[in-house]
């Protein structure tokens, strides 16, 4: 579980960097890649903002996995 948590954390870091870069460069905006948040036509996001929102979800998932990994570690310690 710890390995999975580490993988998720590393991916979150990578996604954060990617999101910041794509947001600053307005990635593919000119090519028409514009995303409506929840289908709302008045809230149009570029790819970078989408990646950053997804990064938040990924960070929450990482936190959940760290919670599981640490809980498992404590349970193992109690057993030994």
């Amino acid at each position, binding site marked *: *579980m710890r*390995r*999975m948590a580490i993988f*998720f954390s590393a*991916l979150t870091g990578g*996604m954060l960097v*990617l999101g910041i870069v794509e947001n600053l460069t307005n990635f593919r905006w000119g090519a028409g890649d514009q*995303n*409506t*948040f*929840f*289908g*709302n036509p008045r809230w149009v*996001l570029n*790819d970078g903002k*989408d*990646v950053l*929102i*997804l990064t938040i*979800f*990924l960070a*929450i*998932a*990482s936190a*959940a*996995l760290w*919670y*599981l990994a640490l809980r498992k570690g404590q349970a193992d310690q109690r057993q030994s």
Partner: protein
Amino acid sequence: MSTAMVLNTTIRLSPGTNLFFYVLIWTVCIAGIGIVVWSALRSKRWQRWTTQDILIVAALGVLLEVYDNVIGDQFITPLLGGSNSFLHFLQLHDLPYLFLLMVGVALVRKPGCVTAMVFINFLLAALLFGSGHGVLDWTDGLTQGIFCDLYIVARRGGVYGPNATRLSMVLDGLAIGILRGAPNALLTDWNFDPYLNAQFYTWLAMWKDTWTNGLFNGIEGAVSAVLAQRVAVAVIPSLGIGKARARAVAADPFAEPDQQPVGPVIAEATATDGPAEGSLA
């Protein structure tokens, strides 16, 4: 009318007929969810879902979305030559997706896990990119997962179960991949796109989308299955995938009866193999 002409005919059903099929698909999805929920909550073949299962499914659902719409769309698909290339025709961009899905199945192994992961992926995509019709589009997500879960129910705990072998894992991966890809592609071309998006397909396009998605997703699921089991065991070493069969193979035939491991496979093996050499029976 020749076969070629029939194949090139665009499928245009009346709105009433489309509505009938659309309601029918929803009915099948709801019935499927009912069966899966009953199996997950009431059936004695599976343990109840734990907090750990829910968190793993949620995390992998997010990961599927990260792959599907960021890594896959921005990096893998362009590397494979774009969405009109031969490699895209082979659905090669779906290989990591199927691998992650199979890891989730191997980690949780309970009815509902595939629909839950795919649906989280679907909802996040709808949040970030707008699905167009809200709840009406949910059938698109549901039909990718519900048939896989019905297969898991039909296997009665055999998917990544204690008696799983390499062959059974590969066959399970094949079935889950086919059931993830084919029904959704068929129903999208037959009903969802024509009815909800006024986008029509020919019979040939529908057939091509169905068989390519089904076959290649199936192959990718089969290829990923054993690797997914290894990853799952690395993540949670206490998983019992294939343990009963491994114990049966490793059992000492000359051991005293009280030292033999107890399990259904051992019981079967000793019952069918006959008395051991030197025994009185």
